[in-house]
């Protein structure tokens, strides 16, 4: 999709006025935070795992060229093919070529964030292919012609009524009436419809949570089983993956797996962790005949060589979104592109350019919770500060440098939204709010102030925060 991150203030304003979205986000916040907490508390080794994972990933990134070459030679040795794409157009072109060479008409897709990043679906459709997203959340937003609003739960913003209506509309041509409104009925309907697609698809495209240099394997981690049907049933399996996904060996994978599901959904393991190595062996009874891995750079080597290398440790678990008060106030679509929340506020400017996304690093209260919960210990707040500084140097920050301030004003009205957030920002912001009075005229587009009065935090809270932090409190 074309990035619309420059419209963050307008979109945030609209999101704040959307009560349905508010309900959905509240539900998400409570579910994700509580489940993660329980899973992390139940594992005393979590901090040690986090440290080990950081070391593994740092080591791999400092030798990324060698590990990529190792990965490539192993894929080739197991009968697969590696393709390299420097940017989004190259990735799209390569995948279209593979589909054409395979004579493909229908493609089923497992969930892939890098697929979203390079706008793969649109390109495949333009090339005349029928593309079916098979992850339930991705399927729903494909029917709605929207982008994911959460990297783990793409359709988190949709209500069951909206989903029922989408199914009713899109399944009518298949001769199916409107499904019931129950969760089970909706899921059963999607299962039924998508089964047909799995069985007739010529190509299955999946992402990769990890690539293993030891063996040339690709790894996907899912709960639904759609990724497995996509990579087993069609004749051709294409994996699209960012170059930063490599891990040296299986033992390294085990360590990172212990962090991923716990951080994402609070599970110890996701239901399906699937390791694919090459195409089917000659005696196998099923599996694809062709196996392709498309390695995508698209800005990653730039991060690798500069002060944002640590961002490449990201395993897309979504914990930073789930603990971000700004994300919970405005939802994913306000961010205007495929990556959202704190990780999106760093990645989007680095991939699409700061000039097109300079609002994002500013839409942050710098409360620090994202870094605390990030299983890969990515210093998101300091990266956001660096991006703010860059934006300011380029004269991009004038109108919106107070966006974070306004955000906080909104959040102050809703203690539940920042209850999970460390109290650090509170004293400072409370003080600012008090001095300036209520945030009635925040520097945002009309949508925001038209619907919200944004008072400063109540005095008692402010006093407490102030005393705790002392007068130097910043």
């Amino acid at each position: 999709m074309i990035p619309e991150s420059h419209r963050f203030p307008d979109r945030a304003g609209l999101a704040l006025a959307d009560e349905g979205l508010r309900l959905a986000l509240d539900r998400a916040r409570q579910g994700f935070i509580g489940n993660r907490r329980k899973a992390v508390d139940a594992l005393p080794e979590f901090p040690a795992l986090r440290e080990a994972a950081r070391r593994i990933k740092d080591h791999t990134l400092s030798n990324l060229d060698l590990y990529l070459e190792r990965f490539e030679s192993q894929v080739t040795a197991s009968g697969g093919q590696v393709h390299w794409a420097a940017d989004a157009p190259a990735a799209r072109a390569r995948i279209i070529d593979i589909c054409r060479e395979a004579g493909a008409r229908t493609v089923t897709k497992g969930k892939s964030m890098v697929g979203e990043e390079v706008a793969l679906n649109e390109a495949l459709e333009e090339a005349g292919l029928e593309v079916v997203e098979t992850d339930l959340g991705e399927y729903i937003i494909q029917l709605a012609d929207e982008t994911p609003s959460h990297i783990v739960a793409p359709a988190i913003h949709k209500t069951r009524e909206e989903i029922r209506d989408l199914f009713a509309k899109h399944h009518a041509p298949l001769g199916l009436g409107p499904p019931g409104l129950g969760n089970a009925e909706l899921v059963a309907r999607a299962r039924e419809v998508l089964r047909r697609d799995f069985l007739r698809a010529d190509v299955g495209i999946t992402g990769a949570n990890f690539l293993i240099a030891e063996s040339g394997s690709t790894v996907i981690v899912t709960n639904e089983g759609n990724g497995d049907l996509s990579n087993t049933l069609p004749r051709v399996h294409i994996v699209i993956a960012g170059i930063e996904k490599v891990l040296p060996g299986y033992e390294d994978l085990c360590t990172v797996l212990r962090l991923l599901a716990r951080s994402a959904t609070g599970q110890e393991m996701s239901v399906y962790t699937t390791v694919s190595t090459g195409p089917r062996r000659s005696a196998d009874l099923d599996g694809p005949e062709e196996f392709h891995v498309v390695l995508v750079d698209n800005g990653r080597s730039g991060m690798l060589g500069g002060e944002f290398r640590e961002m490449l440790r990201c395993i897309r678990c979504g914990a930073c979104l789930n603990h971000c008060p700004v994300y919970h106030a405005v939802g994913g679509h306000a961010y205007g592109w495929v990556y959202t929340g704190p990780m999106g506020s760093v990645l989007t400017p680095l991939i699409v350019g700061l000039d097109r996304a300079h609002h994002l690093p500013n839409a942050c209260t710098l409360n620090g919770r994202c870094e605390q919960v990030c299983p890969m210990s990515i210093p998101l707040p300091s990266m956001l500060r660096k991006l703010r500084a860059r934006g300011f140097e380029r004269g991009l920050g004038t109108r919106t440098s107070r966006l974070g301030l306004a955000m906080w004003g909104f959040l102050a009205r809703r203690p539940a939204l920042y209850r999970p957030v460390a109290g650090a920002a509170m004293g400072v912001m409370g003080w600012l709010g008090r001095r300036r009075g209520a945030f009635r005229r925040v520097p945002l587009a009309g949508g925001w102030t038209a619907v919200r009065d944004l008072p400063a935090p109540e005095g008692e809270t402010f006093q407490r925060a102030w005393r705790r932090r002392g007068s130097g409190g910043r």
Partner: protein
Amino acid sequence: MSAGSGGAPAGSAPAGGRDRVLGAVRAAVRRDPAEAAVRRAEIEARIAAREVHVRPPVEGDLTARFAEKVALVASTFAPVKGVDRVSKAVADYLDEHGLGREIVVTTDPLVEQVRWSNEFAVARRAADPDDRVSVTGAFAGIAETGTLVFVSDRRTPTTLNFLPETHVAVLARDRLVPHLEDVWERLRDERADSPRTVNFITGPSRTGDIELQLEIGAHGPRRLHVLLVDV
């Protein structure tokens, strides 16, 4: 300027992709060509060392731990005293769910030993879309998380783990291991080549994509039943 695709020319030649990407990565990590050989030997040594990092302790009885974890992920579990009782155990489970006697099975050594009673209609092949019940031999079980491991080969097709609504997994007790890492050790020991697919399966298929409510049975099996067999 930020590194990015924003202004990149469309349709850059795929053929040059490898050099361009690897060249950019080498520059980013400041690779000194004179040292590359040494570094390459180092990463080979690191891979060969197979160093285990941090593992949560798995103490006490493996079976008890495995059974407890399996129940937590919405699977069901039954211990079976000997291969000769597997047929009966499967029949009991199918009766419980009103599922008839048509099954598709793997032909791995353990499941091959099962002598199915006459009432069963047994097929040995990859899964068809209409299959309702599969019975498949597991490569390993992991006590740490209640995970089952399946590997693909000519005897154990992957589709049997995904297409049927009901999946009965048969696991030999001596293939129960404490940790994730142990599975890789066994695979390296027992197989000359890596299989096309290794499936780590922890419970029946599920989704939380509608209003974040857990729903069992998304695209894969709705039921996962584990038979732990003393062999």
